[in-house]
């Protein structure tokens, strides 16, 4: 990550190694370049190249790929060479290739709803909807846009250009309210949650829903890649961890949640609802329900709504699959102020999430996380920064600490607000999904879930 922070802006490019490598030019404004490496449509990983504002020749690109992705690619080329057979031991060190989504074995009759939450970002929403229209899938795909700020009137004209897209209004601000409204109004067997600031490749839906062929899978999360790294803030956000969770498939189940008696299971490393698919049935499971409205962006608590939902779903006995192949491109916030706010919110939300698991589920491991692990990790990071081993600014670490301290208070405020505004609910308690037509774009504000 060091290169990225030193070298701003960073160009984002993709290459497909199943074709002949071509030079990457038009980099005269970029001291560094991040290249996502594909084999066909399969995402293998990324390489960072310090190109010093020069074009990257195929030879240079090839060296960087071999150098940085050698072990991932190794399994593609081992066994093909008449090299010393006694060295086959290498083969055992090579990890299996990230599993490919492959042709989905999920029946085409399984329908999908995409719940897209938006808040006054018409241009980005338009791009996102365009990308959604290009999805290649044999199944019925319903797109539900949740306008979380209907009074501005910015969203409906955009949605009107896309026939078939359902518009739902949710006046109560907060991403969890918006997502819940989306879940409630989706008719598909699978509900995909996403945001307005991403775009997706055409095979995204199919790759994301493929793991649902197994009945124990309750959630599938996907990778989130930066669409651009033009400003320092965007690079810093990637250095902070970004939204992606790497290129290796993960799968966790209820036993994973119980791995340690002392340490909280790191559910926050499982992905984010900018790119996540849920089995629609889980929301009607009494042990799970909808998202906790007291968490998440738009609330004082900042984030944590997705993490807590994952927590509940896994705890209820479902598995979560992280499917790195199903990626979206996310536009990170460009300015420093927005970045600081986001990191501050993440820090508040992290604490709020843990307190929620403690208060709602009696998970005492949260205390260990909050009182021991977090302070320790901050000390370690500051130490590393001071020793020059990291370039992540101390000012941001301090900001995170402030956010953490603010966390409990913010959770209390959020809960009071939810108490005032009410919780989201399925309109019909019998549990059968409503036909989508009822909730079409003429739905007035506040109709959803108000009781």
């Amino acid at each position, binding site marked *: 990550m060091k290169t990225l922070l030193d070298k701003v802006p960073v160009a984002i490019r993709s290459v497909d190694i199943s074709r002949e490598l071509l030079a990457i030019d038009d980099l005269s404004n970029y001291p560094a370049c991040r290249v996502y490496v594909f084999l066909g449509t399969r995402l293998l990983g990324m390489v960072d190249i310090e190109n010093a504002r020069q074009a990257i020749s195929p030879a240079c690109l090839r060296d960087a790929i071999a150098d940085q992705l050698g072990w991932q690619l190794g399994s593609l080329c081992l066994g*093909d060479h008449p090299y010393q057979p006694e060295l086959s031991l290498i083969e055992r060190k090579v990890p299996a290739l990230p599993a490919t989504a492959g042709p989905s074995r999920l029946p085409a009759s399984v329908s999908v709803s995409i719940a897209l939450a938006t808040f006054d970002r018409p241009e980005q929403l338009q791009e996102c909807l365009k990308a959604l229209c290009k999805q290649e899938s044999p199944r019925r795909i319903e797109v539900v846009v949740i306008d979380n700020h209907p009074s501005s009137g910015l969203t409906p004209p955009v949605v009107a250009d896309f026939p078939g897209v359902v518009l739902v209004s949710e006046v109560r601000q907060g991403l969890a309210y918006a997502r819940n409204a989306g879940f409630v109004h989706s008719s598909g067997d699978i509900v995909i949650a996403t945001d307005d600031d991403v775009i997706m490749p055409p095979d995204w839906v199919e790759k994301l829903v493929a793991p649902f062929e197994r009945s124990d899978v309750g959630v599938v999360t996907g990778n989130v890649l930066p669409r651009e790294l033009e400003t320092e803030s965007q690079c810093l956000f990637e250095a902070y961890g970004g939204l992606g969770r790497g290129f290796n498939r993960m799968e966790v189940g209820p036993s994973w949640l119980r791995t340690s008696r002392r340490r909280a299971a790191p559910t926050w490393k499982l992905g984010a609802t900018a790119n996540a698919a849920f089995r629609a049935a889980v929301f009607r499971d009494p042990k799970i329900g909808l998202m906790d409205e007291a968490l998440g962006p738009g609330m004082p608590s900042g984030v944590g709504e997705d993490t807590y939902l994952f927590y509940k779903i896994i705890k209820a006995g479902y598995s979560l699959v992280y499917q790195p192949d199903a990626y979206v491109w996310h536009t990170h916030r460009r300015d420093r102020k927005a970045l600081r706010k986001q990191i501050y919110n993440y820090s508040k939300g992290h604490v709020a999430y843990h307190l929620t698991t403690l208060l709602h589920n009696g998970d005492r491991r949260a205390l260990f996380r909050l009182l021991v692990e977090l302070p320790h990790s901050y000390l370690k990071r500051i130490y590393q920064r001071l020793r020059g081993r990291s370039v992540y600014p101390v000012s941001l670490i301090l900001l995170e600490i402030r956010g953490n301290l603010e966390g409990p208070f913010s959770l209390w405020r959020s809960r009071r607000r939810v108490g005032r505004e009410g919780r989201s609910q399925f309109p019909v308690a019998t549990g059968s999904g409503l036909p989508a037509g009822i909730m079409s774009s003429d739905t007035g504000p506040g109709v959803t879930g108000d009781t």
Partner: protein
Amino acid sequence: MADRIKVLEIDLNQPLAGFSGLEDYNSIHAVVRWRGDPVGYIDVPLCNGHCSASAIRAAILKVHSDNLLHSMVRRDLDAPFSDIQDLENAKATGDTDSAARADNTLVTVAVCTRDRAEQLKDCLTSLSKLAYSKVDILVVDNAPSTDETRKLVQSEFPDFRYVVEPRPGLDWARNRAIDEARGEILAYTDDDVLVDPLWVSALVKVFQDDPAVMAVTGLVAPFEMETQAQVLFERYGGFGRGFKRIWYHVDFTSRGDSFLHIGAGKFGTGANMAYRRAVFGKIGEFDPALDVGTVTNGGGDLEMFFRVLEEGHTLVYEPAALVWHRHRRTYKELHVQLTNHGIGLYSYFMRSARNYPRRRREIIRFGLWWFWYWNIRRFLKSYITTPRVPRDLILAELRGALIGVTRYPKARRRAEEIRAEYRSESRVSPGGIPEPARSE
């Protein structure tokens, strides 16, 4: 008592075999190669002059799994994979080896030598075995005191060109090679070197793959480690610069990057370097005030690496371009060599600081840092812990550094005198190239 180490090559395309009959040696130091690519060194101790294939295999796997794998992946990226199934087919069609590509670029290989006919013979023999066909080999005899070199070349290597450069100094000889070269690419090596058959092929491939590359340096491995001095030199750092291909290009607009090219020693050495001939027209020729044969005793190669990067060109270190260097055999020679190394390096700093005022501050800062980090710190540390090399060698280089700071102006004046002297002579004998005539 001397630590004798047997230098070997292990080719992974052959079945691995053990070694025996090496009773005179303590261990082996081997370059592991896979399809010609050097993958890394292994050091395996010998027991009664014997070491087993399994010990070698274990050593390779332990140290070089990574490099080996990268080598394989790189090869495969050369011939793109379309799919895993396709890869299976590719296996059947066989070699996409670089050896198959047409040798369509003429390469001039320049060997600059002076009165070392015996060693030169080995060098030229290795050059006659190059796998690359389109080479033009040029022996530049620098201010010879005898005509042994000429006799050697004319009698045993009639295909090689021989020219005399009467102006004493290695950089005069290198510049002469630029004038005489016919190839688009000009590769330099020294007379105490044996080149690998694939040396030129590897160099050319880098130039062909990327037209922006102006200079390529390669791996210099020890030819033998028979004496303590040779072992020490390798331990001191040697000439090798690792087994990873590295692309160097300096981005002067990025803060902090304008330092990266000043420590030019990391790019390689004059015993194994190649340039696009056109680059000399853009950035100038070698500075005759530097390097062996002058009072600066070295630094000409480093200065050229620096200049290539400083002028905004790309330099690549390509380990597949492999040569074997015969290190100095006696301790005394090693001592002198390290002193000269210090002198050469600091002369190069002085020269570059003088010619590139815009980079002067960085050069001075780097020079001071390097002096502290490499010369002083290691010297002081040798009193605290047991040093890897004897303290007097560290001291020799430290002394060289101090001397080096003062030498460049004098060398420059001398070079000017030589230039004037030979210019007046060439006026007497018109025809442009008076020197060979003079010696014959």
